[in-house]
């Protein structure tokens, strides 16, 4: 750890920029008479939560989970299915969303974490697709067409999520909670162990640490956080369909992490913003925006080492070193 103080300084600046900017968005949007932006930035923050949760296991644990959209979907379907059965209570919605996502992450993680490297990528991708097909086959809840949600999660009159601005600050609060929590986890003994596993798992095992348990715990935490993002997403769109957990969504979330800066927690917030703004700008320019986005992403992967966060807030020598996940031969 070279220059932890400088890293801390950069983090503080980054967090202040994010915080200040995000807190002002609704006021600015109202002043400019463009309420559209409140929705867009809410969406960005929801995906930021998902991307931060992936960064926790990817950037610190070295686990390339390519099935993270599944937990987003589980969180969203928890809200959708509960409302379908007439349960509007927000506390119930979020408790069920978190527990369901954590439970599924526990099962998927328990099987996938027995392997590593490229196996792990393929298996998490396959399990993500399994959850997607499960969503498609839920005929009672709309199947492929999805499910309309009649009302927002109800938290009483003090927190009326029907108001877009209230919902905005609600999402922001969750994002801040997860950034704070993520920072605490990363600096804790658990977080340091996790980073040890990323650098050299064999050595950690030799030192006597049961690495499987640590990885599984991190995997479940990330899944649960992503479940919250899903529940928020359902509140934002008042609609849930299997497309939310299509495997390309998992790819997008990973892309946000890389774009923003892997292993920095706050970086993925920039990444999510950059990705969704790019998507929104390109799709207004041309119908075939994905033909532009694809090569752009390839260029980012091939030539950018540390993402936007590294570009903005870190000096070159402190950039997160790219570790090869290939086995030494």
């Amino acid at each position: 750890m070279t220059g932890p103080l400088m890293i801390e300084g950069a983090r503080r600046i980054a967090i202040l920029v994010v915080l200040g900017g995000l807190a002002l968005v609704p006021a600015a949007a109202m002043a400019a008479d463009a309420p559209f932006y409140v929705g867009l930035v809410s969406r960005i923050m929801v995906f930021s939560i998902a991307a931060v949760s992936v960064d926790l296991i990817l950037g610190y644990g070295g686990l390339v989970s390519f099935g993270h959209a599944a937990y987003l979907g589980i969180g969203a379907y928890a809200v959708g299915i509960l409302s379908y059965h007439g349960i509007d209570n927000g506390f119930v919605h979020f408790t069920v969303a978190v527990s369901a996502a954590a439970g599924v992450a526990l099962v998927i993680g328990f099987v996938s974490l027995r392997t590593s490297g490229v196996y792990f990528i393929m298996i998490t991708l396959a399990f993500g697709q399994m959850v997607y097909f499960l969503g498609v086959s839920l005929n009672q809840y709309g199947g492929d067409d999805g499910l309309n949600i009649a009302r927002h999660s109800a938290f009483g009159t003090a927190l009326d999520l029907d108001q877009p601005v209230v919902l905005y600050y609600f999402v922001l609060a969750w994002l801040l909670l997860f950034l704070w929590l993520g920072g605490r986890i990363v600096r804790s003994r658990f977080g340091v162990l996790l980073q040890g596993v990323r650098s050299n798992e064999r050595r950690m095992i030799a030192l006597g640490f049961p690495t499987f348990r640590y990885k599984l715990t991190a995997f479940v935490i990330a899944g649960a956080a992503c479940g919250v993002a899903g529940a928020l997403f359902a509140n934002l769109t008042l609609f849930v369909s299997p497309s939310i957990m299509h495997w390309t969504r998992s790819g997008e979330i990973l892309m946000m992490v890389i774009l923003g800066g892997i292993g920095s927690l706050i970086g993925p917030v920039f990444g999510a913003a950059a990705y969704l703004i790019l998507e929104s700008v390109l799709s207004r320019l041309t119908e075939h925006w994905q033909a532009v986005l694809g090569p752009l992403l390839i260029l980012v992967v091939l030539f950018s080492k540390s993402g936007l966060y590294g570009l903005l807030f870190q000096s070159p020598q402190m950039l997160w070193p790219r570790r090869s996940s290939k086995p030494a031969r």
Partner: protein
Amino acid sequence: MIHLVEQVLNGTQFGVMLFLMAAGLTLIFGIMNVINLAHGSLYMVGAYVAAASFAATGSFLLGLAAALAAAIVVGVAIEIVVFRTLYTRDHLDQVLATFGLILFFNEMVRILWGSTALYMRVPDFLNGRVELLPGSPYPTYRLAIIAVGLAVALLLYLLIARTRIGMLIRAGAANRVMLGALGVNVTVLYTLVFALGTALAALAGVMAGPIFTVESGMGENVLILAFVVIVIGGIGSIRGAFVAALIVGIVDAVGRAYLRPFLSVFLGNAAAANAGPALASMLIYILMAAVLFVKPQGLFPPRGR
């Protein structure tokens, strides 16, 4: 009983197509240690070019040739432009860069052929039925797929086990650095292996054309199922891919046909109507989890790792 035989044949037909995909993937991974999500795009390119040129010329074989040629050109192009930079990168970079390729190819076929699905008919000389068992005619085209798949599997085995290029491929999988030090042009070998994998994917795409719809993104489901096959079979093992592909194909087909009636015995018709399709669509993933639980390295684990 006749129905069961039919489902097993359907599963075998799907299985050999999965094998063609999985063999290319596992070959490329085994030699270059690169994971290629865009493999499904090459399958899609094969299907599109075949459908378009079959419709234009009226000859299925011309369509097949055009598809293989076009896919190999595309495959070699992305190998040179993108993959050569990716070989030394970690798997995360490879996954994300090839994810970008998928977005690009999905959109390109929409630009070139429109966003509606293309229709590809069964070629006339295979458009019939064969009575395998008395009273159960089976489509000739699907039998032809099984035959072609098995023939390609045999050829692939002979290529890798009996020829000089196969020897180089095996040597490359064992130790690339040593192979290069012995004077073999590893760069060219990589391109050749990539082209071979591309041809297998395109062949699967062409054969899938008349059975599935030819549309943007058609390669992705097959790609992910091919991953399941590779994980079950053991990464880098072509034999494992063959066995696992047939298992996955047959389990999927039989599960979709029989799970619902099977469940209705225990759960009653209404519950089975809901749970049957849901469970059938998850069946092969559950199979994968079960195999991994017992053998984390797959059924035929690669040696020396």
